[in-house]
């Protein structure tokens, strides 16, 4: 993947480069709005990581110009300003995600992966995480390229979890998917989750429970 990093602090720019390159990405880094704008018009990028406080102007104007051109490249905003107004304005202008400084590199990597995956999914209509894939058109799941035969409710659950891959899928949402809007026992969902957990054993994927909140499909054990 080709990533464009627009960040004027050399220390942060270097650590972004060092963190994201090993994940198989090519990084183009710029410190000024003008250079970055020119680069964006010339070439195609898969993701833009944009710092807001740049020496030659506000990153938000760059974002605005990008979206006005009809360019839908995912944009992750990075900033020391964490006021809600700034966040809302950035997202309104068409940013896809927002990360406030200071941030941990692990968190940044997770966000970048999620954004790249989402844009990939938009392109080929498949939900994937690690070795697990779900074809939304055919309604077929596969693990390591092999078709996974699942009962209807487990398939529903898998799709729900994959739709939110990388973040928590709320429990209510999964219950509605699986059982409709009727009353269900408090552990009915847990039964299906543990069945799916067993099937995923050894695949490198786990389902983590968040008490009272929901479930998250995770890649590897951190």
């Amino acid at each position, binding site marked *: 993947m080709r990533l464009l990093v627009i960040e004027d602090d050399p220390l942060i720019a270097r650590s972004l480069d060092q963190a994201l390159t090993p994940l198989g990405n090519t990084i183009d880094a710029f410190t000024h709005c003008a250079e970055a704008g020119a680069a964006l018009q010339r070439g195609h990028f898969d993701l833009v990581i944009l710092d807001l406080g740049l020496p030659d102007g506000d990153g938000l104007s760059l974002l605005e110009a990008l979206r006005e051109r009809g360019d839908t490249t995912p944009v992750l905003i990075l900033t020391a300003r964490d006021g809600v107004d700034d966040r809302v304005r950035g997202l309104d202008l068409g940013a896809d995600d927002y990360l406030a400084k*200071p941030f941990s590199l692990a968190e940044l990597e997770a966000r970048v992966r999620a954004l790249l995956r989402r844009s990939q999914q938009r392109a080929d209509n498949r939900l994937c995480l690690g070795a697990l894939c779900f074809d939304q058109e055919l309604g077929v799941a596969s693990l390591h390229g092999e078709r996974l035969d699942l009962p209807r409710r487990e398939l529903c659950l898998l799709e729900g979890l994959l739709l939110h891959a990388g973040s*928590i899928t709320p429990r209510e949402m999964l219950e509605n998917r699986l059982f409709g809007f009727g009353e269900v026992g408090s552990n009915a969902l847990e039964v299906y989750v543990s069945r799916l957990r067993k099937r995923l054993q050894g695949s490198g994927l786990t389902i983590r429970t*968040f008490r*009272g909140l929901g479930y998250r499909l995770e890649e590897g054990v951190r």
Partner: protein
Amino acid sequence: MITVDGSLKARLAIWLLVTVSALGALLLVEAYLSSERAAERAYDSQLESAALTIAEAVQWEGGEPVVEVPAAALQILATRHQERVFYAVLDADGDIVSANLEMSIQPEWRRQVTERTVWMHVDNQDVDWRLHGREFDSAGWESQDPVQIWVGHTTEGRQSLTDELFEQAVTRFLAMVLLAGLLMLLTMRVALNPMRRLRRVLRQREADDMRPLDARVPEELRELAETLDSLFAHQRESRDALLRFTADASHQLKTPLAGLQSTSELALKSDQPDEWRRALEAVHSGAGRTSRLASQLLSLARLRHVADGSAMVRLDLVMLLRDTVMDWAQRDVASGHDLGLAELPDTAQYIHGEALSLRELIGNLIDNALSYTPPGSMITLGLVQHDRDVELFIEDDGPGVSPEALERLHQPFERGGRQDTEGSGLGLAIVDSIARRHDARLSLVPNTPQGLRVCIVFPLTAQEASP
């Protein structure tokens, strides 16, 4: 925002102008009437003396009155204003003895004259005449019949005298208005002087001078000056608080920075990769702690800055709690803990609050719990519905806090006697200040069997409170 709404001078001037004009109009009407009266009096006495002069000239010849009107009488009647004059002498039967004009004397008038002397304005051939009639007892031997003498003239003289008198009154009046206006301007200058003085005092102040005002002001400006003084006092207090806070904050920031500096310095002196690794780990956690401290300081400063309740709205605490915990559960810092929600009430719990600061409050509670409990600890948030309020709680099964330290926990930079964690001691101070703004009660109690339970009781909004 300052909106300039007219000037005091203009307002005073308009009021003065309106009252003076109304009063002036009344005065002028009265002046005209009195001029007219004066002119009438002056000319009536001329008519009277003319009548007397004619009366003296009446002679009796064979029981009949005969009159030779003296030139003096006519001269009295006609002044320099070229009036036309009239006289008539009538005998007891009403026949004309002598007259200069064809002006008929009505029988009605004649009857009136027998009772008393008559003054009247008469319209003759579209000209206004002033007539005077009176009866004289005849001084003859043979007859006792009275004679009536009528005199009159047109009113040019009266009119011009009236005009003259009125003109003088108007001139006097205008001079007075002019003088009063000048005096008013002068008075306003003098009266508004204290305001100018106050303005000068304020303008000369240094931007950071928050001392009480030192100025002489009249009673009317006392309130304004006192308000300014109390404003200065508030500013002084908040500036002092800010300075104290900044000093505290710098001190707090210096500690972890010093740690970073010494750790990295030691590592640079060493040539052991193991040492480097240990140092890097220390630097990493120190940097994390410092940045967390910085963001907490920022949010505390922001909370103190935004003191008005403009952003307060009716919101559902259930939804807000779920969202915020969801957000925190996914963060990297929470990955080592079991952070979760207890069963929430089925219905929405509406409170009057500010979503942003409530998120901050919940976030700080979670952040605190994460930093003061060992990894793997169970942290649970939840809501308990009461009659008129709703209790937000967070409990953990960590080591807890000693009862004497519980008391001091909500002070800034207080860490409950612990120096071993990543905490800054600001979290609960932030929580406390947000809770106060929402009229909520904060309490800290030991959790059973171990750990800490923090409760914040919010009043429910009126329409949702059960009776």
